[in-house]
């Protein structure tokens, strides 16, 4: 961090501040030059469209801070919510279907079982998280499709009124999905900053060996972290289902997991663990949301949108690398 200690330190040119700066520039630019960008309605739309991404970002962030990664989040989201839906549909495998809350409970049990298995493999068998979760994603998807979900699109039963409310309802004019995102963000922020578990998570990410020597129950904590991420994904799945009437297991084949990683990494949570917090998830989500919303308003074509997204990502990484050059210590921390 020698470079940052020079006179430039006054500008606090951290990754976080750079991303905030880019977000603010985009936001001000769109506000000035785009009619209808800076309206309450549009800003709520902007936030709503990225609230599921933001919630997934929270789950991923907690795992990444503990020096892990969870590439099975989308499989958990799609299959967990799918199981809940299919078990409570009148035409599902159970005759008549369960009341939705019971189906949702069984979906939750399914998610806890598979994510605990993921966590246990990583914690007790010491397998690398990136490969374990990559494989577990396929396992979860496969088990879900073979045992529960013969069809990709699974429509919510009409009895799932509270899921519809989550996905479409409003409270004081604010879409409930935005409120859900903010509540999850604040709750996890409190857990990370004020509880022993939060302390463990940062300690494990910062230096796993030292954390274990200091007596932190790293293995059980790892299991808890993956189960937690899975539950966050499950919640995001129910929100998605409520918003668009159904959950489509094809989400597993989409690039959503990379968008989630993008939110976390662009927001400034290093993949080497131990750094960053919920503020970074919020920043990353806002940047992606502003960018997507502005490009839709500008009616920019598909290919140009991909190009712009790529360029902004590259710019963020480039500026970060110039201002915070890697040194011997950081480059050894096992970046992915």
């Amino acid at each position: 961090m020698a470079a940052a200690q020079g006179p430039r330190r006054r500008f606090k040119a951290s990754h976080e501040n750079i991303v905030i700066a880019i977000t603010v520039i985009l936001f001000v630019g769109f506000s000035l030059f785009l009619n209808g960008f800076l309206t309450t309605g549009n800003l709520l739309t902007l936030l709503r469209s990225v609230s599921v991404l933001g919630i997934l970002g929270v789950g991923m962030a907690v795992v990444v801070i503990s020096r892990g990664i969870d590439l099975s989040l989308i499989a958990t989201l799609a299959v967990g919510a799918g199981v809940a839906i299919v078990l409570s549909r009148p035409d599902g495998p159970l005759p008549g279907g369960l009341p939705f809350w019971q189906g949702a409970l069984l979906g939750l049990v399914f998610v806890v079982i598979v994510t605990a298995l993921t966590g246990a493999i990583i914690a007790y068998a010491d397998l690398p998280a990136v490969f374990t979760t990559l494989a577990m994603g396929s396992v979860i998807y496969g088990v879900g499709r073979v045992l529960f979900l013969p069809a990709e699109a699974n429509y919510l039963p009409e009895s799932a009124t509270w899921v519809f409310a989550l996905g479409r309802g409003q409270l004081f004019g604010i879409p409930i999905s935005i409120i859900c995102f903010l509540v999850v963000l604040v709750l996890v922020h409190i857990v990370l900053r004020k509880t022993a578990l939060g302390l463990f998570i940062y300690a494990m990410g910062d230096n796993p060996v030292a954390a274990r020597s200091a007596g932190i129950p790293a293995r059980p904590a790892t299991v808890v972290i993956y189960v937690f991420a899975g539950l966050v994904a499950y919640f995001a799945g129910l929100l998605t289902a409520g918003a668009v009437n159904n959950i489509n297991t094809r989400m597993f084949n989409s690039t959503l997991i990379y968008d989630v990683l993008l939110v976390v990494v662009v927001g400034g949570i290093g993949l080497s663990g131990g750094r960053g917090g919920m503020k970074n998830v919020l920043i990353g989500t806002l940047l992606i949301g502003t960018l997507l919303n502005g490009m839709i308003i500008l009616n920019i074509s598909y290919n140009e949108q991909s190009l712009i997204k790529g360029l902004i990502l590259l710019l963020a990484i480039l500026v970060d690398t110039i201002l915070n050059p890697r040194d011997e210590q950081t480059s050894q921390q096992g970046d992915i």
Partner: protein
Amino acid sequence: MTSLKIKLAGLALAFMLPLTAVARAEDMGIDDPQRDAYYEALKGKKVVFVPLALGFDLTDGWYASLKNQLEPLGVSVDVRDPNWSTDAGSRAITSLIAEKPDAIVVHNPDVQTYAKLLRKAEQAGIRVLQINMKSAYATDVFAGADYMDIGRRAAEAVVAKCGQGTSGKIAIVQGVPTAAASAYQLRGISKVLEKHPEIKIVSNQAADWDASKARAITETTLQQNKDLCGIIGFWDGMDVGTGAAVKQAGRDKDVFIVTSGGGGKAGCDNLKDGVFDLDISYDVPGQARDLANGIKALFQSKSKPGENNYSLYTQLQMLTADNLDKYRNFGACWTVEGLASK
């Protein structure tokens, strides 16, 4: 004596009567000279289906119906499911060229990827049929929607709703822009709209066949254009998101939503619930029948694979909430279970 003879003769006659009746039944009607050849041509043949993926209404419907129509005739119908991976699809076709089934039914992800492989398959003596999404390389049979016509019909429906006295503003929600279904449909739309300068396209975005993306795009478009009049979506499975956004904005009464799809139960339910106003159906049961008939014709044909190319465009059904009951008699609102158990 004579009376005894007569009696005996009478008895003999009485015994022979049923025999002659049986003999007559054997002679009734005439043999159909073609049917033996027909069953012979089909028996023991092997057909393999390579869809984009199983698990959604279109591909599950085609597969179930093909099995239902062909298996009783002694034709085996198998599937290789690439699960949305074009690489896995290419590998599946490559290995099929070596295995040499009698026919392959291909669902193309785009117009280029499989083109060369399909030619190779025909050169190897395999009949190749394409379903609903075309390759640039024409094979024995294409059975499927005329997407340019779907685009034309969708655009004409929107023009009719969004002409004089409205804002004339419409939005287009495409699927994956490289898919044949998107590209051809867009051309069909633009051919109509160039004659209607009063219609303005305020948003033309791709949602990757993803309902969540369609919803986000539509929400933003509605925010920007409070007076939006119509939306053309490219697939009913994706446009549940488009419809959800319009409903959420409280605009479902005055924004006209046109989409298209296979005409299955989910599409019908969404029409009834007012999620869409018009669903242009390409009638999956009808397409499956076209496909099965194409296969039957090819197996009886003496031509070489690829010698002739037949396009069997599907007769489209313009489904609305009001005419569902009529179209139900023509196969609309089908379910996979129904197609599997006919």
